[in-house]
């Protein structure tokens, strides 16, 4: 393959998900038997096997995955008190379902059901245990006004949180399973009549095509299915907030839930969606607009402030106001490194502090804050390691990076900053321009479920801007976003 096609492929991300292998066919169905099931669970010491010789019934379950009360009330008590000839009638009650294939039986036991063997027939009863975190506030996506509940690790609770918000029979759910060993449940949600079915089909097809041993989180799942796996940018939005996800559903997006993960994915996604928060809609429109614009300014600051410092102090002294130049020269004159190394040193220190703070419990985290504040704020300048203007640049770009509501996006942006600093240190302002141009070219090539990542800027959809860069009043938000490619475009039927 020629170098040119390689470069083109790299720049325009032509490596899409099209080359994924076809879906594997399910195992041949076999009639389940006790011996075979026991053989499957050989050496599983936590499997409980009880026999009731009087009524010729044997049960299999995992003790830690079932609700003990339910187990006693719904199964054990009934089986103990039943007459031998009554068993058949008892097991015909609705909570017992006949299992027809051995694969379903094995998965059923693994997901907390109890298997009841009576002669040739196997019944399954759902007595899953309630051991899950309760619905609490989201720690990564907090809002001031608006609902405070967040998804947790239990997929059923998450589904109920969404269903409670979208009371419509048009809300459809596709159940999938991902991971050859973990067999993680994945649900794909969409609203019929609003969503474009092409997106649903593509989303489901990509999830079905995943062939790995296991996935543990939504953010992991989306890296298997996104259009450009090597890109620095997340191509699907994840959120922990049911209200945000409900609004995405109504905007015509496809939603994916992963069992065991509090994050929920929405697809397709544009780059600018990462800069909006549910808060924007709960505040008055003017405040929502102001905060949204502030986030875009923060984006500019966080990727370019430190690199501007580097380029200006290394190459473009003409750009600094004269009064500032004197103080800057004075504090720079004691620094033994060129501005590039000085900036990298400080940026790495800030990243160290951030990472340490994120990993430590809150009580120790405070110490990190104080130590960091003193070390970075004072001692580094006094020791002549950095100039104080750089401290301001580094600190404000760090603060600005936390303004971006999506943690995944803000982490990506922080990494981009380093390449801009390098470019600035080597080529000055031209370097910044080159790096930003390369970034824009890359982003133009990105797609999310096959739709452009930079919608509504490229392709240019000016109508969408009123809910992208600003949050205009609700009476002007009449249509669903164009990226959803929905046939049902009008969402606000009120007369103006």
């Amino acid at each position: 393959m020629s170098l040119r096609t390689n470069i083109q492929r790299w720049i325009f991300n032509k490596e899409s998900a099209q080359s994924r292998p076809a879906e594997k066919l399910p195992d041949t169905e076999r009639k389940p038997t006790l011996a075979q099931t026991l053989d499957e669970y050989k050496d599983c010491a936590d499997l409980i096997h009880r026999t009731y010789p009087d009524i010729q019934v044997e049960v299999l379950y995992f003790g830690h995955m079932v609700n003990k009360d339910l187990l006693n009330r719904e199964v054990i008590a009934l089986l103990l008190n039943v007459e031998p000839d009554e068993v058949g009638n008892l097991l015909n009650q609705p909570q017992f379902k006949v299992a027809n294939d051995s694969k379903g039986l094995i998965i059923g036991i693994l997901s907390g059901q109890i298997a009841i063997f009576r002669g040739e027939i196997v019944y399954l009863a759902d007595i899953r245990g309630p051991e899950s975190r309760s619905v609490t506030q989201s720690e990564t996506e907090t809002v001031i006004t608006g609902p405070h509940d967040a998804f947790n690790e239990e997929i059923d609770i998450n589904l109920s949180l969404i269903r409670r918000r979208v009371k419509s029979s048009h809300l459809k759910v596709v159940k999938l399973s991902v991971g050859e060993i973990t067999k993680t449940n994945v649900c794909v949600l969409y609203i019929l009549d609003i969503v474009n079915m092409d997106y649903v089909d593509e989303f489901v097809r990509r999830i079905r095509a995943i062939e790995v041993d296991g996935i543990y989180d939504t953010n992991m799942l989306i890296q298997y299915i996104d259009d450009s796996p090597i890109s620095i940018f997340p191509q699907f939005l994840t959120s922990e907030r049911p209200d945000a996800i409900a609004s995405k559903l109504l905007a015509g997006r496809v939603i994916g839930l992963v069992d065991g993960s509090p994050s929920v994915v929405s697809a397709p996604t544009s780059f600018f969606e990462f800069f909006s928060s549910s808060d924007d809609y709960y505040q008055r429109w003017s405040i929502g607009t102001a905060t949204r614009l502030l986030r875009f300014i923060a984006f500019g600051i966080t990727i370019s402030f430190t690199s501007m410092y580097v380029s200006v102090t290394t190459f473009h002294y003409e750009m600094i106001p004269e009064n500032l130049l004197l103080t800057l020269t004075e504090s720079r004159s004691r620094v033994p490194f060129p501005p590039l190394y000085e900036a990298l040193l400080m940026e790495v220190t800030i990243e160290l502090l951030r990472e340490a703070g994120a990993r430590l419990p809150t009580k120790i985290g405070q110490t990190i804050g104080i130590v960091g504040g003193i070390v970075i704020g004072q001692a580094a300048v006094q020791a002549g390691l950095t100039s104080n203007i750089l401290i301001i640049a580094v600190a404000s770009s760090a603060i600005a990076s936390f303004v971006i509501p999506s943690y995944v996006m803000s982490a990506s942006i922080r990494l981009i900053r380093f390449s801009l600093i390098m470019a600035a240190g080597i080529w000055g302002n031209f370097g910044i321009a080159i790096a930003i141009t390369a970034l824009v070219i890359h982003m133009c090539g990105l797609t999310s479920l096959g739709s452009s990542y930079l919608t509504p800027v490229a392709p240019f959809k000016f109508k969408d801007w009123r809910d992208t860069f600003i949050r205009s009043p609700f009476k002007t938000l009449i249509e669903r976003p164009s990226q959803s490619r929905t046939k049902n475009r009008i969402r606000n039927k009120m007369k103006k």
Partner: protein
Amino acid sequence: MVKCILIASVLGTSIILSACSDRRIIEEIGFIQSASYDRSADGQLIIAISIPKADSGSKVSREEFLTTARSAKEARITLSRQSQLTLASGQLRNVLFGCSLARLGIWEHIDSLVRDTVISPQVRITLVDGDAAKLLTRQYKQHPIPGRYIEQLLEKSSRNQTVPKVTLHDFVKEYYEEGIDPVAPIIRDKGDHVEIGGIGLFRDDRYVASLHPEEALIFAFLRGKFNQGEIIMDLGSRNGIKETAMLSAINSKRRITVNFDQGVPTVYCHARIQGSIMEYNGTLKISDIHGRHQLETQIAQNVTERANKMIRLMQNNGVDSLGIGRFVRNSMSYSGWKSLDWMAKYPEVKVIVNVSVFIKDVGKLKI
């Protein structure tokens, strides 16, 4: 694999080539804040530069270098031999020209300033009545960095219209434009201070005449519109007492129209001045509307007289600093203008000044 090699080679090349670029790390450069050009008695060029110093350890807050040379670029090379820093002119704010040099023409220096891409078009061009190098390199007790002191003085003065704001850009534009001649403020040494010494008028790039600082506002009235300024009017004496009025918070607008009478242009210059009376020691009752109108007429007469005198001075010296030629040019055809030798005709052109004054208010005391 190809991708990896590509990335590695781009990064590698850029790191290797980074040493080849023109790096100017700020603490390693001496940025020239002001420069002055003078002519010595034997015709040599004297160049002085002033570099603010940022070293907090030393008491001296600036460095000056002085050299004689044949050209500015030669001077830069000689000067850089005296400094441990790389001299850079990207922060140049002031260029001072000695009047003796300016009388011979300063275009070659202006040309070299404009040609240098790092020099801002906002650099101020100023004339110095006396020795420019001495003015720049001497110690002022209250002003550690004379370059900045001069810059701020000029900035404030141009805001109040006591001198016109003349940047490199303005000078070059007026130099090349047909129908207007450049001007530049004049400053002079006054012991511990620097003071505004008037306005220098140029014919092409040669300094030929100057206006007294008191006439600066009249010049401003005739030259364009502005929104801030104050002027003291001498309204003659009555009963042995000198009557003066001070007009403040002035808004002024100017309109020039040209009439042709058998091919000879007559230029009408209308100035509309609005202002508040801050001080008046005459006999008129200015809180009364009639008294105020009388005063307005008196002031208008005074301004007209002074304006006429100024235009006569310009015509006698053959400098069109007000840009009258521009209006004449705009009122005729291209070929007509090309066939007209404006500078030859200019001294004879009749310029009629018409000033209207409006006093907005007379202060708090209404008696």
